[in-house]
């Protein structure tokens, strides 16, 4: 096995494989605990997601948000920073987009309104993300603690704005926005009818392509990865870690913020308190299984979106909460099993090398 095959195996194949196997085994146990036949339930899950265009549309919709938070966490990790704050950044992005959408006069052409809203989402998420970046660069404050705490602060702040300033009475959401709505995919492809899938997915695919290009084709990306991989070598090369931390976290926050578009402009046409529903935290799982690679992140987002939509499809047989359990178990399994299998693989290789 040469180095490149091994790297491919370890980095790209192993995590999703572990995730899939563990999800299947744990899922079987839960299904049987509920007195159902695993085969039947799994089949229903697949049919309800990839088996019909509505279900598939919903998977795409959910994957769109997860891809954003996954990319956000991935960019942070590439710079050596753990962004646990995607949840708050996502909410801020959605709020920013919704606010601009509300402020624009009705009938603003989409060509102007949508980019403005997208910019607002990026800016709001980026602003929230840059706080831990600055605190890390300036004071050495650990980004994990800061991002966790910031989640609560941002969510409380947004809750205040929505409940006290902007809400439709008796609800926790803003009025409908006048401009900037992103069209549903079903407008173009009848098959998606009823699903929330919308053109945000294209924006997100572009964002993923941008992130890939940034990380692997620009000098800034080169320097960002250098800091994440070996900060001493980066220092030797004249790269200022503080600047990289700041820009990485701002970018990370902006990517998470972008995900807010999907719900606010693409689905409901208003900002609603609590719309994030844990997508920010799942972004950690998405980045983990996608190995911080934009392509991997997109695939992992599809995987988790499938699980999440699949939960609804099987709810009649097994409580949909089963998939939440599976998500936790999958993350745990990938976090523990992958390094373990990698160690075993390495020691097996070195043994073979040592043998005459």
């Amino acid at each position: 096995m040469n180095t490149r095959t091994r790297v491919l195996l370890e980095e790209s194949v192993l995590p999703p494989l572990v995730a899939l196997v563990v999800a299947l085994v744990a899922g079987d146990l839960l299904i049987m605990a509920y007195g159902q036949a695993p085969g039947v339930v799994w089949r229903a899950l697949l049919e309800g997601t990839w088996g019909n265009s509505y279900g598939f549309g919903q998977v795409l919709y959910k994957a769109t948000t997860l891809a954003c938070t996954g990319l956000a966490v991935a960019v942070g990790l590439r710079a050596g920073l753990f962004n646990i704050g995607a949840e708050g950044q996502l909410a801020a992005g959605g709020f920013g987009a919704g606010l601009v959408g509300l402020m624009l006069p009705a009938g603003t052409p989409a060509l102007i309104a949508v980019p403005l809203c997208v910019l607002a989402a990026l800016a709001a998420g980026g602003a929230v993300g840059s706080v831990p970046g600055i605190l890390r660069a300036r004071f050495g404050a650990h980004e994990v603690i800061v991002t966790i705490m910031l989640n609560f602060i941002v969510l409380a702040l947004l809750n205040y704005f929505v409940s006290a300033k902007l809400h439709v009475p008796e609800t926790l959401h803003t009025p409908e926005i006048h401009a900037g709505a992103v069209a549903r995919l079903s407008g173009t492809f009848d098959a998606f009818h009823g699903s929330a899938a919308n053109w945000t997915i294209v924006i997100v695919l572009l964002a993923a392509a941008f992130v890939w290009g940034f990380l692997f084709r620009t000098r800034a990306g080169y320097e960002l990865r250098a800091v994440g991989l070996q900060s001493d070598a980066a220092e030797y090369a004249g790269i200022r870690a503080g600047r990289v931390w700041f820009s990485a976290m701002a970018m990370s926050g902006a990517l998470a913020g972008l995900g807010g578009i999907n719900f606010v402009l693409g689905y409901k046409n208003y900002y609603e308190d609590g719309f994030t529903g844990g997508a920010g935290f799942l972004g950690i799982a998405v980045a983990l299984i996608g190995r911080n690679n934009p392509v991997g992140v997109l695939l992992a987002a599809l995987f988790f979106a499938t699980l999440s939509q699949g939960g609804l499809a099987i709810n009649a047989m097994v409580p949909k909460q089963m998939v939440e359990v599976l998500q936790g178990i999958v993350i745990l399994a990938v976090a523990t099993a992958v390094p373990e299998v990698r160690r075993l693989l390495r020691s097996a290789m070195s043994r073979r090398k040592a043998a005459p």
Partner: protein
Amino acid sequence: MTVLLFLAQTLRIAIPYLFAAAGGAIAERAGVVSLTLEGFMLGGAFGAVLGAHYTGSAWLGIAAGVAVGVLLGSIHAGASIRFKADQVVVGVAINLFAVGITRFFLQLAFQSSSNSPRVVGFGASAGGSSAAFLANPLVWLGLAVMPAMAFVINKTRFGLRVRAVGEHPQAAASVGVPVNRVRYAAVIASGALAALGGVYLALDQHQFTDSMTAGRGFIALAAVIFGRWDPLRAGVACLLFAAAETLQIQLQAAQIIPSQFVAMIPYVLTIVAVAGVVGRSTPPAALGKTSE
């Protein structure tokens, strides 16, 4: 009288924080990141309700809740110590898992997606008499837990080893301290303690409701950090945070400060503390590093 009511209310809010923060303090001092307190609490709350429901005994409810905490703590310890997994990732996973598994079994055991039926407990029923509050053994335990934790960490052999292991594990290992065993014990203890916080919530309200811990585990973590990883200071932070909450509840009618801003206090203070704007709070040196 208002003062007494205020104090009673503060204590009532503080008890779960105190339990969870005690757990957070011991685990973090041993060098293991405690993002899991929230999950431990939720698991403990659910375990307590299950136990109380099936046995009819609040005491056995406590036992069941602690058992769930020990179980979750063992998973956390095993993944972080034995498998050297990233502790932040493990923390996020366990919290997600705890939400999912409690919902799943809520459905399985009680056919509800929102709450369990009423179970026996210690808390006062609606309104709340101070007699019932004082009769709750968990209140007294909760008040004692931080001084006890301070004693354990500062005055016992185990505590000395916990401090050594969290600060410089190689040095501890070089003189024969079983580093991993100390960490296992600390993390499992943190599971049991944080779970007690959840047990208190559930038995006080006589039921389990979906995601009933509502971020209290993170407030407890904030208290640990704000208290600079010292149990007594963390305990004071818990009381401070609880007092702020009480104030918010009392002022709600008056609408002086929006409640959300009061709710932010613990988090803002914690960020200020880690940024070192007023006296830096330095975590245990080996926190989060179990790989070497």
